[in-house]
């Protein structure tokens, strides 16, 4: 049995906010920088809004409708203003990916007016596929009253529930009364559904989706659910699947849009025509998906209802009678075990997110060596045995086993529903980018498998004033937080260097306080350095004794610089120091723009031609690591640009980056 909830995202929203029922509602998401409509209610369709239309256009259309609707002038303009307000709100939520429908502030006008008294202006909401899915999962749980086996259809945006009703119909007095009961119960929940019962999931899905010539406007205009109560289910008698399917359009076979389009171009519109084509050629011309779906629909290929809920333990092991060190054997064993696991996964409609292998070895000595653990993380769920094997093999190649292998244990430690079309990993919209995503997912998994998942990273910008804390890297695999919570950077942020040294390097800089006679500079021994560069100390060496001394890595030579935070990001030893009364040591220090003349870096004197700054950064007090720095952007006489800062606590200069 298949229960289809047409336009589930909209239905979900109107179920959560009844005042939107019968109104023009659009859901939008950002696709390649533009907000586009991804779903719209029947009312919105009637206004000319279509899926894929830019939100701005949709709003304009709705505004136009307002004017046509013959509302009183004053009211009409008032609504239009509100309409644009909603749009602004929508874009404000852009970076906050999953706002729930009930998070929205209640709309006062919705309470003032009865919902169907006259249409409200169109409401635009950001699309939230995850919440839609969760709501449908909740509905699946509720539907367990009809059948113990309930699942969601396999799709990025599921809209159908699949129920196994084999041998259950008599409990409800026949299939027809079961279907009627389901219809009635869903309708009472305020949901519009289409129900079909057939021998196979594929056929039931096809019938639910296309047995009625559904006009988009037929189901959600006002409360029309009751009017279709008696005709909204189809029963396909046993053994009648094939004749029933023949007249249906090919899209009823759950085919990808590209395949349907390709078939349409070839003049194949209905399933019957497809049947007449030579079977051998279908796969090579249209891909394996077509044959798979076709076989599933007519029952040639078994398709279990993908169970919703916790998947059972997925593991396989094998112990070797004759321990071996032969790579070929080990690989063959792993391949076999992975094959078993992927078979189990496929039956569940799941894919592995992490695969763990334990290799038990024996050694000549009495002590049993620690088993070797391999772990493969994935960017997206997969049940492809070959792909998993190649990822495991990549780690195996770099491994030295402590002794002959005696046993192997493989487990899918984390799984997720296998999606027909992969979720978009990056903010890209069209078919071309989906292909990109697939390739990228493979690349990310390969890189992560060999280099470790902490080496393949995505960027998340943070609103932190301290330059080295202004972003965070997140691993790309096994990371549930896919969406980037990008905070808007302040627009007036001064230029930042493309290369930021992991640890700032101590410099010696000659500088002046402009307008004052006193030279300001620093030198370790406290002597007064000379304001102009090129001057050597008496013995002809570099005037600043502390300068140029570097550790082997060319980084900071000072012993006190070894302090780092746990995540290894904060290298500054000065950050924890506070004055006696516990405040920032130089909070009241006024910003004195210094005139920089020259500096020494890597043992070379460099004259400074011009510089910009200072940009004072004082932050970190809530971390208990107070940072006070004056940053200068420096250009040398040769045109090279660097980023310096002067530590306010002690006036030391550091090189922090290069404008590469």
């Amino acid at each position: 049995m298949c229960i289809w909830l047409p336009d589930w995202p909209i239905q979900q929203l109107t179920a959560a906010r009844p005042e939107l029922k019968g109104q023009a509602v659009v859901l939008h998401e950002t696709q390649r920088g533009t907000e586009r409509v991804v779903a719209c209610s029947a009312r919105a369709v009637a206004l000319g809004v279509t899926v894929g239309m830019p939100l701005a256009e949709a709003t304009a259309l709705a505004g136009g409708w307002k004017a046509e609707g013959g509302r009183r002038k004053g009211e009409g303009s008032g609504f239009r203003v509100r309409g644009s307000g909603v749009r602004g709100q929508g874009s404000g939520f852009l970076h906050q990916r999953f706002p729930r429908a009930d998070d929205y502030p209640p709309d006062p006008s919705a309470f003032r007016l009865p919902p169907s008294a006259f249409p409200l202006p169109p409401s635009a909401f950001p699309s939230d596929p995850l919440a839609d899915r969760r709501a449908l999962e909740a509905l699946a749980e509720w539907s367990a009253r009809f059948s113990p086996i309930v699942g969601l259809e396999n799709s990025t945006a599921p809209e159908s529930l699949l129920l196994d009703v084999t041998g259950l119909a008599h409990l409800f007095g026949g299939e027809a009364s079961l279907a009627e009961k389901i219809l009635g119960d869903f309708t009472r929940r305020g949901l519009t559904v289409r129900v079909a019962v057939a021998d196979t999931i594929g056929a039931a899905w096809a019938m639910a989706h296309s047995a009625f010539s559904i006009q988009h406007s037929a189901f959600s205009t006002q409360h029309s659910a009751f009017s279709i109560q008696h005709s909204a289910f189809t029963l396909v008698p046993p053994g009648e699947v094939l004749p029933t399917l023949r007249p249906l359009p090919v899209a009823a076979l759950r085919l990808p849009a590209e395949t349907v389009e390709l078939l349409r171009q070839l003049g194949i519109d209905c399933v019957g025509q497809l049947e007449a084509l030579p079977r051998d050629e279908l796969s090579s011309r249209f891909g394996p998906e077509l044959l798979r779906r076709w076989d599933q629909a007519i029952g040639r290929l078994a398709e279990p209802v993908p169970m919703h809920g916790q998947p059972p333990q997925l593991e396989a092991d094998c112990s070797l009678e004759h321990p071996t060190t032969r790579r070929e054997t080990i690989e063959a064993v792993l391949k076999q075990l992975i094959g078993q696991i992927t078979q189990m996964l496929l039956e569940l409609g799941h894919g592995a997110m992490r695969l763990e292998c334990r290799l038990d070895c024996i050694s000549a000595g009495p002590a049993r060596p620690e088993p070797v653990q391999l772990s493969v993380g994935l960017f997206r769920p997969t049940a492809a045995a070959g792909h998993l094997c190649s990822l495991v093999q990549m780690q195996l190649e770099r491994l030295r086993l402590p002794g002959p292998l005696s046993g192997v244990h493989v487990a899918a430690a984390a799984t997720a529903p296998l999606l027909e079309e992969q979720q978009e990993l990056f903010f890209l919209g069209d078919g071309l980018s989906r292909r990109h995503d697939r390739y990228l997912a493979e690349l990310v998994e390969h890189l992560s498998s060999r280099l470790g998942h902490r080496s393949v990273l995505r960027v998340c910008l943070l609103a932190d004033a301290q330059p080295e804390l202004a972003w965070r890297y997140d691993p790309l695999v096994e990371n549930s937080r896919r969406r980037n919570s990008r905070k808007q950077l302040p627009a007036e942020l001064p230029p930042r260097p493309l290369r930021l040294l992991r640890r700032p390097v101590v410099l010696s800089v000659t500088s002046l306080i402009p307008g004052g006679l006193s030279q300001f500079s620093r030198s370790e021994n406290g002597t007064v350095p000379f304001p102009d560069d090129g001057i050597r100390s008496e013995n002809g060496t570099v005037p600043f004794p502390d300068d140029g001394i570097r550790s082997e890595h060319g980084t900071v030579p000072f012993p006190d610089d070894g302090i780092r935070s746990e995540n290894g990001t904060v290298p500054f030893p000065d950050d924890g120091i506070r004055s006696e009364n516990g405040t920032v040591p130089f909070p009241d220090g006024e910003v004195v723009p210094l005139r920089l003349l020259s500096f020494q870096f890597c043992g070379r004197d460099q004259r400074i031609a011009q510089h910009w700054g200072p940009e004072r950064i004082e932050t970190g007090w809530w971390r208990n690591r107070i940072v006070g720095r004056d940053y200068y952007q420096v250009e040398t006489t040769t045109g090279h640009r660097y980023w310096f800062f002067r530590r306010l606590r002690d006036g030391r200069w550091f090189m922090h980056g290069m404008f590469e």
Partner: protein
Amino acid sequence: MKEQCKDPIQVETLRREIARLEQSPARSRGRPISSGCDPLDRLLPEGGFRRAALAEWLSAGEGSGATTLALGAARQACRDGGALVVLDRHREFYPPAAVRLGIEPEELIVVQAGSQADADWALDQALRCRGVAAVLAWPERLDGRTFRRLQLAAEEGGGLGLLIRPLVSRGEPSWADVRLLVEPLPAEPLLSRKRRLRIHLLRCRGGAAGQSIDLEIDDETYSVHLAARLAHPAAHRRAAGA
């Protein structure tokens, strides 16, 4: 005995034939990727960087501005979809600055390989991937074989490989489609924040090498313009080949 070919038309035909043979079929696909700045596009024979190829940027010292320009090309490459992979072995790449230059954080993948061998392998893999629009890397040593392999990887993947290398590698053989030298120029006091660079086209497949242009980068907007050269008659003469 040396045969003289007098027919200029025939010479031209042969020249075109050579140019055609020099280009592998993979390379001729698609329109070129703009470098993000018009003067540099005009310097390049096809009006931009070819897809499925490598572009080598020699940087004259630290803080020269070569990466800024390379990221401009990367941004253009990402416009048609696909990701930018940055191979940051030394962990000194600063993403906020790249975002300021117009790179979308969503399309940025940073790879931190531990060893040189891993870094080379990752570079090869990233170039080979068809979902990658551009790869930015700072390879340290590149022997001829590795370089050739990278070029083949780029041809397979179809993206643009941006390799930033120190000036000392100037003498080494290159499999890159284009080799540019980026050299900062001393500031002119009147130019305020604008940054001046000179770009030499050292090597270029299917085009005349040896030209150079002066550019100005505006720090605030990151727009790049052709710099007036009147102040440097010597440089002008040198550029003209005198």
